[in-house]
């Protein structure tokens, strides 16, 4: 009954608000849940480089180009940092990438939407990073130490991205008619998918139970979504963007906004692989991963050769 004892002990550590570290005992379910969630997060950072990368060469000013390049570089860095954090749980990056490419692991469905005009770069920063932050701020208090620390570090950069995205939207709403139309078009396309980023309603979210008990998840999908909505609607209104929802209103009693129902049919369709860019994103990842194989092999061969040379001369 040693294992049972450990599980009890583990749960009491969680209940006491302690961090679990890589070498500590953890139930298999806890480890599995973390691997799934953290690798999904890492993959999202990496796949997210594609829609934003789509605009670097067309960025309309040298300043905008630098901000976008730096942002994408941050996201790649988050990916690396998160992959290392998952590796503490005993899975290699190569395995994680294989899971991504075979569809066994997911990434955030938001990146299965296309970045079609320059304002999309604003909308992604403002809405997508904005939604990610709400989730990640909450995850700073998650029970797994390496994940929690990764979130603390990542959150600082994400809030920077959110502000830069909002700045693009603001500039475009103050700009010409064409620019305003681009901004509104981006808003119309990214608003609902960004609300879907928080996942299904709590009532339809099967995995929440354990994740809450283990304090991996500190707030529910609906709580986090509501925070995002309440924070974002006034920002949209401030710069003259229309919320693409005829029924949204502020409930004076609760201080929260209420919206039309989310189109969960679309959410499930995109998650299950039929969004506008699912195939493109994965194909892209696989293509360049395969094209890079000879480079990785060369680096490995060179490393072995130089190690051997050092052995001989030592």
């Amino acid at each position, binding site marked *: 009954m040693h294992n049972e004892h450990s599980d009890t002990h583990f749960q009491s550590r969680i209940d006491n608000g302690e961090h679990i570290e890589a070498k500590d005992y953890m139930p298999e379910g806890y480890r599995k849940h973390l691997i799934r969630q953290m690798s999904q997060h890492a993959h999202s950072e*990496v796949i997210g*480089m*594609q829609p934003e*990368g789509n605009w*670097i*060469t*067309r960025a*309309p*000013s*040298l*300043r*905008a*180009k*630098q901000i976008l*390049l*730096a942002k*994408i*570089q941050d996201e*790649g*860095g988050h*990916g*690396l940092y998160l*992959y290392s954090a998952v590796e503490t749980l005993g899975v290699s990056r190569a395995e994680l990438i294989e899971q991504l490419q075979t569809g066994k692991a997911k990434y955030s469905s938001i990146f299965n939407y296309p970045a079609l005009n*320059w304002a999309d770069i604003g909308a992604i920063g403002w809405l997508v990073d904005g939604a990610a932050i709400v989730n990640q701020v909450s995850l700073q208090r998650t029970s797994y130490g390496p994940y929690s620390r990764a979130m603390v570090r990542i959150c600082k950069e994400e809030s920077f991205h959110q502000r830069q995205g909002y700045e693009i939207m603001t*500039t475009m709403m103050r*700009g*010409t008619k*064409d*620019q305003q139309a681009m901004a509104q078009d981006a808003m119309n396309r990214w608003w609902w998918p960004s609300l879907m980023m928080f996942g299904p309603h709590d009532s339809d979210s099967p995995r929440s139970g354990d994740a809450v008990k283990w304090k991996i998840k500190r707030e529910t999908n609906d709580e986090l979504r509501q925070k995002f909505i309440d924070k974002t609607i006034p920002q949209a209104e401030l710069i003259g963007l229309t919320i693409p929802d005829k029924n949204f209103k502020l409930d004076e009693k609760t201080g929260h906004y209420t919206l039309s129902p989310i189109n969960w049919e679309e959410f499930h369709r995109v998650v299950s692989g039929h969004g506008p860019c699912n195939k493109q994103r994965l194909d*892209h990842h696989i293509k*360049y991963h395969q*094209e*890079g*194989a*000879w*480079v*990785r*092999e*060369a*680096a490995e*061969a*060179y490393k072995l*050769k130089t190690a051997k040379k050092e052995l001989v001369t030592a």
Partner: protein
Amino acid sequence: MTTKDATYNYAIRLGDNALILGHRLSELCSRGPILEEDLALTNVALDMIGRAQALLKYAAELEGKGHTEDDIAYRRAEINYHNHLLIEQPNGDFAHTIARQLYLSVFEYLFFTELEKSKDATLAAIASKTIKEVKYHMQHAIDWTLRLGDGTVESHKRMQKGLNDLYMYTGELFEMDHIDTYLLHQHIAVDTLSLKAKWQSEIEKVLTEATLSLPEDTYMQTGSKKGVHTENLGHILSEMQYLQRAYPDAKW
């Protein structure tokens, strides 16, 4: 020709080199052979765009027509662009990209070490900031040249091909025209001709260690100082300048 005009042209050339290389390298975003490398190349691209901004801003000041660095970058036609032909060449495979980086970064290291001594204070200041970045770019290119050259049979073959294919564009790096000579006399410009031997021996040293060889002498392509480019530049500019050209009244 006044010193101001000549320096304007000089700043444009250097700015264009940085801008177009930044463009080429940023095309590789999300296409690296490994995530670390994706970030490394994006990092070089970022340095390049930063350098381009500083140089084109200076050019705009010298021009004195109230233009910004963005006007200069986004509203000029091909013929008024003066980046080296080597820089606008497509990325090709990773070995090709590294070959371009090797040729250029070794050149830039030598170049900016000299430009740091320029009597033009702005160029000297930009050069001394650039040197720190270029050291890293050069080390990155050398490390990969060694890995690819002395890695596998395939990587060796690809690396040698990249070096061979691009060699004909390296002669231009050392060309001196009347603007260079004029500014050299005023201790503003770099005597690039004097860098050639050093460049060649540095490159040879790296290639020897990498079990690669310096390509055979060949006819060296030329034209960028006169605004005559390869077909590549037009495509780069039509992509890069698209928003500024399509919405000329917009501010971004």
